[in-house]
């Protein structure tokens, strides 16, 4: 990267990281989640953006040329090809199932039945391969058929290709536009994984009343699986936060939240935090009654993206001194309101929630597709007008002093077929270097395990 660009990159990254750590910054960070809005103004349909990496790259380029004020941008390519290869029934795909201009939509069902918890908990791989996948993956419905084998083969190949496509886009964005991504790696709340992918809201609602112990046990099992997969993908430099969408707590009463949601959610995030990572959580829906819990996280470890329903001023009162908050510009204001309304709102938020830098502009989770361009510009202009603390240099991106700290991961067997098993069943004597063979065997075993566990 050129020197001037490296400097700009460091300013943006440094400002963002300092905002999360609650350290002094030169101006309000503009690490604004803009994905849907960037899609909408790209000139391409959502279908084109999900099938054509050139167009996905062009979307990022167009956006960043137009809005150089942005501090971070997640430019990756979210390929729909993968959803076709296995025919995932969890999603409705733009251009294939729904309007090419719609976003990908989630098809919530009770994909796992109420009496299948035991197998789900005791045998996560077997449950998926034998029961869950034939239901959610159309191409695997007739498992054991040639078609089903080929579908898995193609899906494995596609994963490598899609990663490389995303990497190329991100590298160009970094080198040409000096923009860091806003997060690296994803983890989900175990209760959300269980609800979204397996039981659906109706199913989990009944389970919480009829078989509460199994819900808790399942969340604990999911936590172990989610953590192992997350750590493998998180930023090895421990600078960029891990991203979490916390989706279902808004539907729960405080008692249910404390019993089913919070314990494994908090435990999982604390494993990451204690190993030196920070986290960025999208607090979806109404969390007003759960805010005291969010105050439990240590200072400078979490950035909270609040949805429209959660009161940002109360949240600020409860934990604004410890952790940064993003949000507070109503989604409907960006779509239907005026630039002056937006300007006044941003001013108010900077003077209150953001008075010492702990606020990042955002709507309910992200800038909506229908945001009027003049309203988005008003957000950026208001940051320049009201959100500059000093004209000195931005803070430097801090290097983690916890690089050597290993996460305290729960012990789980992340192999589907262990090396010992394959060696024994073939009666291999291994006259050469066993470690060389074993290491590669296990590398691919862990990749396969993560693939099966996180497949949707």
């Amino acid at each position, binding site marked *: 990267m050129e020197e001037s660009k490296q400097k700009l990159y460091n300013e943006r990254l440094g400002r963002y990281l300092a905002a999360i750590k609650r350290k002094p910054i030169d101006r309000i960070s503009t690490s604004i989640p803009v994905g849907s809005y960037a899609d909408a103004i790209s000139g391409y349909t959502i279908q084109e953006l999900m099938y054509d990496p050139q167009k996905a790259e062009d979307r990022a380029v167009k956006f960043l040329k137009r809005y150089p004020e942005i501090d971070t941008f997640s430019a990756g390519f979210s390929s729909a090809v993968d959803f076709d290869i296995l025919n995932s029934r969890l999603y*409705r795909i733009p251009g294939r199932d*729904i*309007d090419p201009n*719609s*976003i990908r*939509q*989630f*098809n*919530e069902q009770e994909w796992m039945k109420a009496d299948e918890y035991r197998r789900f908990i005791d045998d996560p791989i077997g449950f998926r391969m034998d029961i869950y996948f034939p239901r959610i993956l159309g191409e695997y419905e007739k498992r054991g058929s040639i078609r089903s084998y080929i579908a898995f083969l193609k899906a494995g190949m596609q994963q490598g290709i899609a990663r490389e496509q995303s990497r190329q886009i991100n590298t160009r964005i970094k080198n040409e536009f000096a923009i860091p991504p806003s997060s690296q790696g994803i983890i989900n709340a175990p209760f959300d994984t269980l609800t979204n992918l397996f039981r*659906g*809201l*109706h199913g*989990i*609602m*009944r389970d*919480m*009343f*009829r078989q509460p112990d199994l819900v808790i046990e399942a969340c604990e099992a999911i936590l172990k699986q989610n953590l192992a997969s997350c750590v493998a993908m998180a930023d090895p430099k421990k600078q960029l936060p891990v991203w979490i969408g916390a989706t279902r707590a808004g*539907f*729960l*009463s405080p008692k*249910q939240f404390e019993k089913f949601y919070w314990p494994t959610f908090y435990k999982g995030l604390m494993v990451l935090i204690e190993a030196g990572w920070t986290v960025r959580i999208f607090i979806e*829906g*109404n969390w007003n*009654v759960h805010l005291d819990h969010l105050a439990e996280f240590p200072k400078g470890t979490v950035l909270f993206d609040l*949805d*429209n*329903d959660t009161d940002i001023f109360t949240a600020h009162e409860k934990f604004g001194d410890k952790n940064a908050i993003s949000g507070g510009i*109503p*989604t*409907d*204001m960006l*779509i*239907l*309101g005026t630039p002056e309304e937006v300007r006044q709102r941003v001013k108010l938020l900077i003077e209150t929630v953001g008075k010492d830098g702990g606020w990042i502009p955002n709507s309910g989770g992200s800038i*909506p*597709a*229908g945001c009027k361009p003049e309203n988005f510009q008003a957000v950026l202009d208001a940051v320049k007008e009201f959100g500059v603390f000093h004209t000195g240099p931005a803070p430097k991106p801090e290097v983690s002093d916890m690089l050597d700290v290993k996460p305290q991961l729960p012990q789980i067997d992340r192999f589907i077929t262990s090396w010992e098993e394959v060696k024994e069943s073939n009666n291999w004597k291994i006259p050469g270097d066993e470690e060389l063979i074993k290491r590669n065997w296990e590398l691919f075993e862990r990749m396969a395990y993560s693939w099966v566990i996180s497949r949707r």
Partner: protein
Amino acid sequence: MKELVAAITNLEEEAAVAIVEKKLQAGVSAHDILAACNEGLIAVGDLFSEGEYFLTELMFSGEIMNSIMEKLTPYLSAGETTATKGKVVIGTVLGDIHDVGKNIVINLLKGHGYEVIDLGIDVPAAEFVKAVKETGAKVLGLSALLNTTYPEMKTVIDELKKAGLRDKVKVIIGGAICSEKVREFTGADDYATDAIKGVTFCNKVYGHE
């Protein structure tokens, strides 16, 4: 009957079903049992409105009611099992396939005695207009999760106007993305961000307050 009302209000499913079975064996009329159940459901709705209960608790009261109806239905005459309070047309608007919120409202409305005409998901404006015309429903519910649907909600209401039906039906838009600003933009009569408000709205329109 007080203990049945209390069991439903406290969301004690096994207790509620056991009481219903006992009452039926003792020869209590199914009609009277049903009335007590409704009293319990209304109490749950009130607790929800007061912020005491949350969505999943409101939903579970509907589940308890389903379990009770399995026991009661054989004892009720045909007229007593069908809804009588009024008709409601509901659907998720074009461009949106989410039905979780819509289905919660439907369960509640049925529990409260409404006949619900469910048009499903991704419903074009013309289908809403057709259903309102054919059923003569006085309430139309437009559901959505995506904030990209504001223009489509407006389209439905504009189409109702063109068809000369706007003054014959009250329209409520529902979903977490709704607000007074969105209501005003779409031209709806009211908006709801929680399920019980849909029931309150229908009660108002049909005069069951």
